């Protein structure tokens, strides 16, 4: 089952391609992390997935073949946009009621329960809530829609570490309890290491790496040896004198000293490399 299917997807603004030739197949029930520097095209891809932006080129289907932005796609995907846009002069209770009225399926009781657990006063104006509470309100409204896919665009960027932790805890609980899929964009690499199942790396409008996190980790190693000492078929991602970050085609000879690399290290190496790498797997 794939939750997102993109083929040759692209979006152009004027003469600039914000995203180009993107081919992806993202699995259901996972937390997909969309990583890239600012302006890489992450938001463009997410906006196309949630139907806010129409593709300029290629095809994009969601939730088993529904065109992005179609009624079924809108119904099954909940989106928490960057900076959590909410109607600031409405109360929390009004925001819950309003979101219920804008959707076919909405679990009001669940939303109210979640907000009560978080200690958010229903009579409070949405604009008066703290940053962390606004994020939790936006997330609670999205989850109460009982979506198949939850799309989060840089949700934790404006939050302090504690609020960030609480936010991610809510997301992980919803994934475990309701089996929803999550796509999350971020440039905070460290926090994703623990939660992401699947990684999509975007830079300069192109997908550079796409694959399950464990496979990507297994496929890369940091070798402590000069470049010439590497066996045939090794793809050198980054080279710094005596250290080579390589993508393995075959197991390394046991004699070569090497260690596994983390997501952060791997990601940075790909971004620094700046050349197009074919999708993994």
């Amino acid at each position, binding site marked *: 089952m794939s939750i997102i299917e993109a083929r040759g997807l692209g*979006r152009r*603004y004027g003469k600039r391609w914000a995203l180009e030739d993107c081919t992806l197949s993202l699995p259901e029930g996972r937390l997909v992390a969309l990583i890239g520097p600012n302006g890489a095209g992450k*938001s463009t891809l997410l*906006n196309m997935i*949630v*139907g*806010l*932006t*129409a593709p300029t080129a290629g095809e994009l*289907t969601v939730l*088993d*073949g*529904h*065109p992005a*932005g*179609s*009624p*079924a*796609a*809108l*119904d099954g*995907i*909940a*989106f928490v*946009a*960057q*900076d959590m*846009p*909410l*109607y*600031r002069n*409405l109360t929390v209770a*009004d925001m819950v*009621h*309003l*979101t*219920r*009225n*804008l*959707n*076919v*399926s909405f679990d009001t009781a669940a939303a109210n329960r979640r907000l009560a657990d978080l200690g958010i006063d229903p009579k409070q104006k949405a604009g008066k809530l703290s940053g962390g509470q606004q994020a939790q309100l*936006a997330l609670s409204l999205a989850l109460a*829609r009982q979506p198949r896919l939850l799309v989060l665009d840089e949700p934790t960027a404006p939050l302090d570490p504690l609020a960030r932790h609480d936010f991610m805890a809510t997301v992980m609980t919803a994934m475990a309890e309701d089996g929803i899929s999550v796509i999350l964009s971020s440039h905070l690499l460290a926090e994703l290491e623990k939660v992401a199942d699947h990684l999509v790396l975007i830079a300069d409008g192109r997908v550079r790496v796409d694959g399950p996190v464990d496979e990507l980790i297994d496929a890369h190693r940091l070798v402590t040896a000069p470049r010439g000492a590497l066996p045939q078929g090794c793809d050198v991602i980054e080279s710094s004198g005596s250290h080579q970050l390589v993508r393995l085609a075959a197991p390394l000879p046991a004699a070569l000293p090497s260690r596994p690399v983390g997501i952060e290290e791997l990601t940075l190496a790909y971004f620094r490399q700046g050349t197009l790498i074919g999708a993994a797997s």
Partner: protein
Amino acid sequence: MTTLTAAPGVGLRPVRWSRLGWVTWRRYRFTLAAVVLVLAALSLELVLSGQHLRSAYDAVKACTPAASPRCRFLDESFHNTYGGGGFLAPVLLLLPGILGAFAGAPLVAKELETGTFRFAWTQGAGRMRWAVSLLLPAGLVLALLLAALGRLVAWHDQPLADAGIQSRLEPVTFSTSGVAVAAWALLGFALGAFAGVAWRRVLPGVASAFGAWFGLAFLATRVRGHYLAPLRTTSMQLSPRNLSVDEWWTKGGARVPSTQIDATLRSLGAEVSPHGVKVHVVPNSGSVDPIQYLLDHGYRQVTTYQPASRYWTLQWIETGWLVGLSVLLLGAAFWLLRRRAA
């Protein structure tokens, strides 16, 4: 590549309009209350000044004998007091455009400006249903409120038309009463909605919408006399209840250039000053009446005009093109909305 179950939207019922209507109501009830309050204040002023106007006019009508100096003085002071239209006239003239632009432009533009459209357009209802449930009720309510105000304006101005002070076809009454006032408000709203979506900003949206509305309102004062072929008369005593469109002099059935008429009048010692379409002729003391002189010498003044009885026909013609233009603008706004990328 896709299976049958993947057909988009199968078995999915859309969000009910009543629910979407609740959203619009909840978000804009205070705005609506503010608009109603402004209109109520204006209405109160219209009722009070309308009662003054009526009692003054009743006094003029009740005065006998009509030719007595006292009655002439009453009549003259009635004309002087109420001839100018009062301070409400410019307010009422601009009100449909101001309210329309201020109501129409921010509805979508504010969402685009603050980013809340990312929330609103990704809900299950989708952006088109959301936009329809927002724009249509707002536009209709505004038009209905202005139509109600227009009835009051028509009542208020009735003695002015009866007394021959001001034709109901003059812009001051015509575009602020009847059905046209609602259509002018709808046009302001549609211009606002379109400009708001096009600019994606509230202030440029409001400003350009009002500017365009003002231009069209000015244009309408120029073309209104030509909605229907004007009637023509050679009577010099055209009732001021009608709207005069144009006038010129003829001799023997041929049109005489106004320069020639002016020269003739000057040779008689009259001062000629162009003032709108009318030429005021001020006879010098002791000389012959220059107008009578022209008539005696075979000149005839031709006046084209719209009779007061055409008020409703002209109202519906104006309403027709205004509503047509508004529908086009709203359609363009929806088209832009559908294409708008985040």
